[in-house]
């Protein structure tokens, strides 16, 4: 992606004067086609969809359209879609909404989750345990960051009301055997939620094949704007609203619908799914080129996450003797945007819980590097990174902590 130094404000770019953006798991640029689809709904069709006049009708029509488009991708009914403001809101609404509703009718207060969840899930469940009398069982992950569905099955208790398992890990890219968990959840009649935020643009989202009851997505991970999200809630699932007020979104999420962003999310999801087959193949090739290149140039760099069952755009490593933040700074000065793990934890110098759960020693986990590819990424970009990264790692070896 081209960014002028002036516009980015703060970058010197690569030696070719270009910024290489490899942080698509943190956020993606808004696709121009998405932006075009959104534009009429700011100043032209601005009515509140709840009204009865022509302006309201235009908004309501767009909202219906967006809901149908999203439902088509997920293979569900339009009314099973709730639009939200972000992935975190979707996760909160799914977990709190479903667990509170189930507890309300005496079904129990036990939740099963995994050791590789995003904080939007793990902190939400932790708070419910601390303040609202819930109990959780956390199923472990292996050294690839993969759960074993048999562990989920073993964790089930008579009072289990919800299973929440991430679809694909943001930090290490591992894709979980979600459909197998879905099978088990179905068998025991327990609700299954998945945080599909990272999977959104890349994996099959058909909710029947996955056998999930709740599924969270975030628009800005697939070229829609930040501030757009959605939650699939299977028909018949009781959900206690977490935001009350008007009867928007079937009474499950009050607040005037953010029409332009919803239109954007729907358009972006549709585009992503259309491009999925060809784009995934292209990305996976670049991904493997990057992984092989890093492992060749930096022999002690270790790939984190599963080698094949991983998101097609996702690479992640730990590099011994290197501190992530210093590495990211050096890469930035070389015009390469990278991350260490979850963008939500940047700046902290504690090792990631997920890497620790995978059995990576704390000292090594401090040297995490995540490079996530996107539509703008070219083979040339990968080669530039491979030319720059080893020298930086080498140089950082000189930086000894006091």
């Amino acid at each position, binding site marked *: 992606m081209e960014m002028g130094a002036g516009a980015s404000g*703060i*970058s010197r770019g690569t030696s070719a004067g270009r910024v290489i953006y490899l942080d698509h798991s943190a956020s993606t640029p808004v696709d121009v086609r998405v932006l075009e689809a959104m534009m009429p709904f700011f100043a032209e069709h601005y009515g509140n969809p709840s009204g009865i006049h022509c302006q309201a009708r235009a908004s309501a029509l767009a909202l219906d359209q967006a809901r149908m488009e999203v439902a088509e991708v997920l293979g569900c009914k339009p009314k099973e879609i709730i639009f939200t403001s972000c992935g975190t809101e979707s996760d909160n609404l799914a977990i709190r909404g479903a667990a509170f509703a189930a507890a309300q009718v005496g079904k129990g207060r036990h939740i099963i989750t995994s050791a590789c969840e995003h904080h939007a899930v793990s902190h939400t469940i932790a708070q419910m345990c601390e303040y609202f009398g819930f109990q959780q069982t956390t199923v472990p992950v292996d050294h690839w960051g993969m759960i074993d569905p048999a562990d989920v099955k073993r964790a089930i208790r008579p009072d289990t009301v919800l299973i929440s398992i991430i679809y694909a890990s943001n930090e290490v890219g591992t894709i979980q055997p979600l459909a197998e968990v879905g099978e088990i959840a179905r068998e025991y009649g327990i609700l299954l939620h998945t945080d599909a935020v990272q999977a959104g643009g890349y994996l099959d989202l058909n909710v029947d094949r996955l056998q999930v009851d709740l599924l969270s997505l975030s628009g800005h991970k697939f070229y829609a704007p930040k501030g757009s999200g959605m939650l699939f809630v299977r028909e018949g699932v009781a959900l206690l609203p977490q935001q009350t007020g008007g009867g928007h979104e079937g009474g499950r999420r009050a607040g005037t619908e953010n029409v332009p962003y919803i239109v954007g999310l729907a358009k972006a999801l549709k585009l992503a799914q259309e491009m999925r087959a060809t784009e995934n193949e292209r990305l996976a090739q670049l991904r493997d080129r990057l992984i092989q290149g890093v492992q060749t140039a930096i022999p002690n760099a270790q790939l984190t996450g599963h080698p094949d069952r991983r998101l097609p755009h996702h690479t992640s490593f730990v590099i011994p003797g290197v501190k992530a933040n210093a590495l990211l700074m050096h890469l930035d000065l070389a015009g390469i945007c990278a991350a260490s793990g979850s963008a939500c934890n940047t700046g902290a110098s504690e090792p990631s819980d997920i890497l620790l759960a995978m059995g990576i020693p704390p000292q090594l986990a401090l040297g995490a590097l995540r490079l996530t590819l996107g539509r703008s990424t070219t083979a040339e970009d990968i080669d530039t990174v491979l030319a720059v990264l080893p020298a930086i790692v080498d140089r950082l070896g000189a930086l000894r902590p*006091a």
Partner: protein
Amino acid sequence: MANRGIVVVAMSGGVDSSVAATLLVEQGYTVIGVMLRLWAVCSSEGNRCCTPDSLAAARQVAAQLNIPFYVLDYREAFRHIVVDYFVSTYAAGRTPNPCIICNERVRFGLLLNEALVLGAQYLATGHYARIHRTETGEYRLMRGKDLTKDQSYVLHRLNQWQLQHVLFPLGDWLKSDVRRIALQRGLVVHNRAESQDLCFVGENGDYRAFIAQYAPQLVHPGPLLDTGGTLLGQHQGLAFYTVGQRKGLGVTRAQRTYVVRLDTVRNAVIVGNAEELGRDELFARAVHYISGQVPASPLRVTARIRYKSPDVPATLTCLEGNRAHIKFDRPLRDITPGQAVVFYQGDVVLGGGFIE
């Protein structure tokens, strides 16, 4: 514009470091801004540095200057190096100066090292002090031009290697100039307050509350005695008292009463009259000379025994084991163990040590 090299600037979001960065950009350096996150409690109430406000201010200035900007997490190092020293020095009955240690070991230690690894030739800060390279290649540390803002006292432990890689862009400017430059260049921070000393201590600068909270195990009440050994009352813990302190002693005597000594062996605070406080000599430990050479002594100098106290003419005698003896031309009331004594000749900093 000639490229004069890469320099990392430590930015605090205050006006001084912002103008320092601005001047370097204007002088043709390639500038990288960094902000150190030093203390864990980074709320607007918890401490006075690295608050969200100052972070936003520094980030905005960096954007105005179109330079990269990074926040570096130095919390662990700061706690081990500076805060532990601060607390343990108080607990030992001495009065610490955390800025000196922070400058020596964190800013011009860890950060300087990191800057050089980053590919920079220099680390710059917004301190009011000057560095002069003599014809023989020796680096000299000198007072800032603005004597009311001079910060050479807290920089006196820098060595030749450090000075070679450090820039103080504000050394030749007056504070009033700095504010004017900030205003002229339209820096968003032109009217922000300057950074505070004791940045990690709460909003009101109450170090006693900080110690009580951070190291309650170090707060042992004990006797408060006069110099004759008469018990006058109880003290709250040695860490809460400083030599020369008059307020908050909780004793009623005919004359004005000052802390004259902290006796760690008996865990006692010794108080007395003003004349019992005055001394005209002191010994210093861990004495450092900027030149790297112990000068021939006795040597006539002016010495400063606190950051904000005036220079006093004195005779310096260098001793074995990095110690020194300083004899002042007149008695001083505020000789405080733990504080630094810094030696000057004119505007040149010779070095300094910690008062025994």
